């Protein structure tokens, strides 16, 4: 009896591999519609009820188990949990880095040693054949002119070829960024980086394999004057994406914003007004200095103001003075008036102001105060009005 048992145990040892028999899952993979060969790609098999971590793979074609073009062959019994009649197994082609994958296919395990999966087609990734970016002014090309104190709409446009049919395009995103100091993955910042997560896909465009992608951005006036890159990313229904970009240049924008008037209030003749503060805002995208000039009634008339009463009825241009950096409050005498304030001139004179452009998306910090006083000479009365011309001049250093 002991001898019989020993023989039986030996038989178990020898035969055990055959107690878990082979069962093959086989199938045909059609080449991608853009012509890419399926052979050499990897296909993964798993039992979804167990989880994808217990999986097997094969190389499609002659380098794989099947030794045959376009065919794969996987023994599902080699899964850690094996496979049994009635199991539903899932297969898909893995992305080996070339973006050619497939959707998932299911197969039911039956008897007779193997099961054939319905044909799988290698998916073609979407291909962006052209991309361009511009504003509403297409001439000159590749230049964008911003709008002072406002946003400018720009459009990135791409033509996408999708050999699996344009309807397999799922969504598109776009990024528009300063190509010199930002990059595709950077965070949004109005100076240098914009994102549109829902670009419009125009399925009516072109033939059955073509679509147009339109991605709009609203660019603030203080976006850097640099080369900018608009990159569009198009995803298909298998989350395979294609990306392409185009460069453009955002032109310098010299612009400033002012309060409506400088009001000196009531000033007696032979008196110097109190200091009036006047805000200057940089509404462009470069650092600015100020070009200043003034006139009473018409340009170059030598006056700062014309008045309604009195013998002279004019205030000379030299009596209106400013300080672009420091405030001097309180009463001052004529000597201090001359020393602490620069006089306005009839012809434009560029003064150093160095007002940088806006860098803060939440608060407009590109504002500087200027300080103004006027001396009313003897014999001038009534209401006085004049004009100050503010000009923005690009300051060195940006």
């Amino acid at each position, binding site marked *: 009896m002991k001898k019989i048992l020993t023989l039986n145990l030996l038989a178990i040892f020898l035969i055990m591999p055959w107690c878990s028999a082979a069962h093959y899952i086989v199938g045909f993979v059609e080449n991608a519609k853009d012509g890419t060969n399926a052979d050499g790609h990897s296909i993964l098999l798993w039992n979804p009820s167990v989880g994808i971590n217990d999986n097997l793979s094969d190389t499609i074609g002659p380098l794989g188990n099947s030794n*045959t073009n376009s065919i794969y062959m996987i023994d599902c019994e080699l899964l850690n949990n094996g496979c049994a009649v009635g199991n539903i197994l899932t297969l898909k082609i893995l992305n080996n880095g070339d973006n050619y994958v497939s959707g998932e296919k299911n197969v039911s395990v039956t008897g007779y040693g193997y099961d054939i999966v319905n044909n799988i087609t290698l998916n073609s990734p979407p291909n962006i054949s052209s991309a361009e970016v511009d504003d509403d002014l297409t001439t000159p090309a590749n230049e964008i002119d911003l709008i002072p104190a406002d946003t400018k709409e720009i459009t990135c446009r791409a033509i996408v070829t999708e050999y699996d049919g344009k309807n397999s395009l799922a969504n598109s995103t776009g990024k528009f960024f300063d190509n010199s100091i930002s990059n595709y993955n950077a965070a949004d910042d109005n100076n240098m980086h914009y994102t549109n997560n829902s670009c419009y896909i125009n399925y009516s465009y072109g033939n059955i394999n073509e679509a147009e992608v339109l991605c709009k951005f609203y660019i603030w006036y203080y976006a850097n004057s640099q080369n900018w890159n608009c990159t569009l990313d198009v995803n298909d229904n298998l989350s395979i994406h294609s990306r392409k970009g185009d460069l453009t240049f955002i032109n310098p924008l010299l612009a400033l914003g002012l309060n409506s008037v400088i009001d000196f209030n009531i000033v007696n003749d032979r008196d110097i007004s109190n200091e009036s503060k006047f805000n200057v805002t940089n509404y462009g995208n470069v650092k600015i200095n100020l070009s200043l000039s003034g006139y009473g009634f018409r340009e170059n008339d030598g006056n700062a103001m014309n008045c309604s009463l009195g013998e002279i009825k004019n205030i000379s241009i030299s009596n209106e003075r400013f300080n672009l950096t420091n405030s001097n409050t309180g009463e001052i005498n004529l000597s201090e008036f001359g020393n602490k304030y620069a006089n306005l001139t009839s012809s434009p004179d560029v003064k150093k102001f160095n007002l940088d452009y806006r860098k803060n998306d939440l608060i407009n910090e590109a504002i500087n105060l200027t300080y103004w006083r006027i001396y009313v000479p003897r014999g001038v009365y009534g209401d006085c009005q004049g004009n100050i011309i503010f000009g923005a001049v690009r300051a060195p250093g940006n």
Partner: protein
Amino acid sequence: MNKYLPILILTILCISGIILAEDFKEGIKLYEGKNVINISFEFNPFYVADLIKIYPEITTVTYNDSKQEFGYVNAFGGIGDNFMIYPNQTYEITTRKEVTLNLK
């Protein structure tokens, strides 16, 4: 004795599919489904693809040399490893229906 009973039953179950060719000199009878055979008489080795050409009822043939599994599937004109069938080796053969192999 009782504690060896499960082992004995398992052993009988596992070897029930083994057909020793010596017992079937007229031919090797394969039943529908999976069969594990060990052909113990001498014959000239042949390729598994040739076996399937003669017996298209066979759907798969698998050989395991304890290091690696070799499989041949009767689909798409025959795919997999076209390995040699030798005497005294164990093979798993799956058939669609009952078939008798005459190897001599």
